[in-house]
């Protein structure tokens, strides 16, 4: 309401005041801090397309191109083995640190899965931005399932363009072994993620 009124009265000046892009504004409003340098403000194709469309690219061609580009970025495990150690995977899923200017760059990055997903149903402190992944292993360990999960972790935009999930592989957040360990945490029948709650 307030805005509409003001807009009518002063609309003449509005166009001259700010011709800057978001990038320009951020560049003059931020400073390098430890590992978080101003170069992080540069956007790649996916970031730019998703920002401009507010994460809802309507154009089918754009969507298709984003998905294809994302799929092409995926590197499958060199040895063909997808499943690592679920216990190490649990640590990665719980660790919320990594790549913030306040983080120690020599320590391994976390995946912070619990920030957004439910996994082990006994863990109370889980987020809800993403779907629950409790009992994810019930989906089995078929080749397509292993492939799908790996791609999803590596570059989520291959399936869901402008998804909010980080590109853990494509952006180098997690290394191959960490991704294998997360795969195990999700899919290994022995993982607590796949132990339903007892009544």
């Amino acid at each position, binding site marked *: 309401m307030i805005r509409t009124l003001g807009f009518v009265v002063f609309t003449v000046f509005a166009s001259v005041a700010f011709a800057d892009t978001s990038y320009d504004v951020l560049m003059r409003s931020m400073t390098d801090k430890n590992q978080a340098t101003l170069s992080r403000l540069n956007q790649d194709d996916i970031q730019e397309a998703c920002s401009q469309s507010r994460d809802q690219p309507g154009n089918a061609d754009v969507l298709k191109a984003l998905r294809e580009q994302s799929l092409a970025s995926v590197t499958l495990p060199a040895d063909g083995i997808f499943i690592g150690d679920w216990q190490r995977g649990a640590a990665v899923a*719980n*660790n*919320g*640190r990594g790549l*913030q200017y*306040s*983080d120690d760059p020599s320590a391994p990055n*976390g995946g*912070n899965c*619990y*920030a957004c997903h439910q996994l082990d149903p006994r863990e*109370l*402190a889980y987020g809800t931005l993403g779907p629950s992944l409790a009992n994810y292993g019930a989906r089995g360990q078929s080749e397509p399932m292993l492939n799908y999960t790996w791609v999803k972790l590596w570059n989520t935009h291959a399936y869901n363009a402008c998804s909010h999930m980080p590109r853990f592989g494509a952006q180098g957040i997690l290394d191959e072994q960490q991704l294998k360990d997360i795969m195990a945490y999700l899919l290994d029948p022995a993982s607590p993620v796949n132990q339903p709650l007892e009544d």
Partner: protein
Amino acid sequence: MTTQFAAAGVSRRSLLRIGALMAAAAALPVKVWASIARPEAAFTATGLEDTFAQLGGMPTVSADIILETPDIAENGAVVPATIISNIPNTTKIFVLVEKNPNPLAGMFEFPAGTAASIQTRVKVAQTCSIYGVVEADGKLYMASKETKVTLGGCGG
């Protein structure tokens, strides 16, 4: 005097005298600081068992101690704890946090006329039990309860 209050090699009494002089200089009640002795060895003990030993031995579990602590604390830096003793002749209450570097957080002494209960807030380094230990007629009693310390927002 910037050293720890009960530094080694200096008698408790002389330290108290220094403290009292300083308090006087600051126009504060002088006599209050001489009221109770500090169990320094218990404050610097590093495990629960060692701490109990320094306080005089393993306390007996008692249902007459009410210990109110949250099941879940959002941050371990400030965890409220209420301890109420229904044990007759309670003179002291100790608050211990199991997995802190030094479990003993504080002790309280109750003269006649003061209820044997205390409300305080303590730091809890990680999920563990908080102990309320009561001294009555020279014997030690205890109650304990676990508090889960959760991670904050984005985990950073």
